[in-house]
């Protein structure tokens, strides 16, 4: 669908089909995401966005097609292997250990406690409020703070590829703006590639370079972010 050479593609999906049991949620989907870009994948509920992210991360098995990261196939790789090779993930459903402290939630994102200090300093740069509240249980944070914690956890290891699932859901515009700033800063500093799954088109078109709309597990439309994209996306998202 996109004309991009393999050299600059960070993540390529090639005819990917996946789903649960007999149900194919993602169907024959192809997509190429360039190194260092922020890509927004939009679409209404139930169209396969979350399943696609889970398939990339190896949480749901791909039933067909190929997924390549930096040119090498990652189909069948374990989530552990992918996380180790620089993939960060901010999930949407039950995304935090509610009964664990903020510190322990963040600690689970690093491989050993030796890396913890440096990683914490990294994310305090984006979300300073976390520094003073490390001992607090994640479940006691407000909705917006929880979202920032999820974001912080995904950034702990300074990932090369960041997969983010509807981080803006139910958030105030001010919090959304802080998350948008963190994403931009992270890309600026490390050249991070970001795949953003979103329903909030204001946020998505604000931070993304390119967009695509998913419908019934297939790409319905796509383009560069620019004048007129907003109307085109809204055409797909509205009732």
């Amino acid at each position, binding site marked *: 669908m996109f004309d991009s050479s393999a050299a600059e593609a960070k993540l390529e999906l090639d005819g990917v089909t996946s789903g649960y049991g007999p149900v194919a949620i993602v169907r024959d989907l192809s997509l190429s995401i360039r190194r260092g870009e922020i890509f927004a994948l939009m679409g209404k509920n139930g169209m396969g966005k979350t399943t696609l992210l889970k398939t990339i991360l190896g949480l749901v098995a791909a039933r067909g097609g190929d997924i390549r990261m930096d040119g090498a196939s990652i189909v069948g790789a374990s989530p*552990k292997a992918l*996380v*180790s090779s620089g993939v960060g*993930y901010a*999930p949407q459903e039950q995304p935090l*250990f*509610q009964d*664990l402290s903020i510190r322990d939630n963040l600690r*689970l994102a690093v491989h050993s406690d030796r890396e913890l200090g440096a990683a914490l300093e990294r994310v305090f740069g984006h979300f300073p409020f976390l520094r003073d509240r490390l001992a607090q249980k994640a479940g006691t944070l407000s909705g917006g703070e929880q979202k920032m914690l999820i974001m912080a956890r995904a950034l702990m290891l300074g990932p090369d590829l960041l997969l983010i699932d509807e981080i803006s859901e139910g958030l105030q515009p001010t919090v959304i703006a802080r998350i948008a700033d963190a994403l931009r800063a992270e890309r600026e500093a490390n050249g991070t590639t970001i795949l953003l799954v979103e329903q909030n088109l204001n946020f998505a078109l604000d931070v993304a370079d390119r967009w695509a709309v998913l419908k019934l597990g297939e790409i319905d439309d796509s383009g560069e972010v620019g004048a007129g994209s907003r109307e085109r996306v809204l055409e797909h998202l509205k009732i």
Partner: protein
Amino acid sequence: MTLLLDIVTTAAILFIVSAGLLAIFGVLKIVNFAHGAWLTVGAYCAVVAGGLGLNPWLALPLAFAAGAVLGGVTERLIVRPLYARPLDAILATWGLGIVIGQLVTLWFGRDVQFTESLLPGTIHVLGTTYSLYRIFALGAAVVIGLGFAFLLEGTRLGLSARAIIMNEALARALGLDTARIRLVTFMIGTGLTALAGVLLTPLTSVDPTMGVAWLIGSFMLVMVAGSSFGALAVACLLFGGAQVLVSTFISPILGGITVAVLCALVLRISSKGFARV
């Protein structure tokens, strides 16, 4: 006074015997019905240590190692294929228990074995004379309880295990090696159970079927406790206490079923048992 000591030491022994089963059930959501066999294996480690003329205390590390190694093999070969079929896992581990029991029988014979007592004699506490070993068992239960608390709260492995208990899907998504954590947990659980088997030797006769007698009690206590060691301690105190009272004032035979019956009733009222404590 003796009654009070009986209650706390009985609870302590129940706790020691059940802790390994709880560790496995809490993290793996699998009931290890070969639990009794590991107690037996542990007790026979004490027999072997005695036969070799070793210091009886050396049986403790020996049993832990034997139990853990055996547990590792079991997790890999028997339990891992059955994570999705918990009822079948109960059956397969029960079958394994039969196998281990018969192997022990083939090796050592059916007869009751005797081991050197770890701590003979009595001690003067709270105005009465009481078995020194039972007091020691109380201490051992506290050490095991604190050990688990440290392992769970203070170490990375414990944190990972707790993460899996709370939300396994998320733990996997964050790249935790759930397979390895399950293996290690199973090994710790079985190692500890074998160690508990050694600790049982001064209190009970050692024969190939000794473990089965303890299986149901610990199974019921673990069902009630869910995945919390605190809840297990509470359950052991309450039901162990009831057991001592029934045995003392009504009938020792009925005392033997007190724990199981009370646990079943508690579960009927609240299917989560004491897990919320």
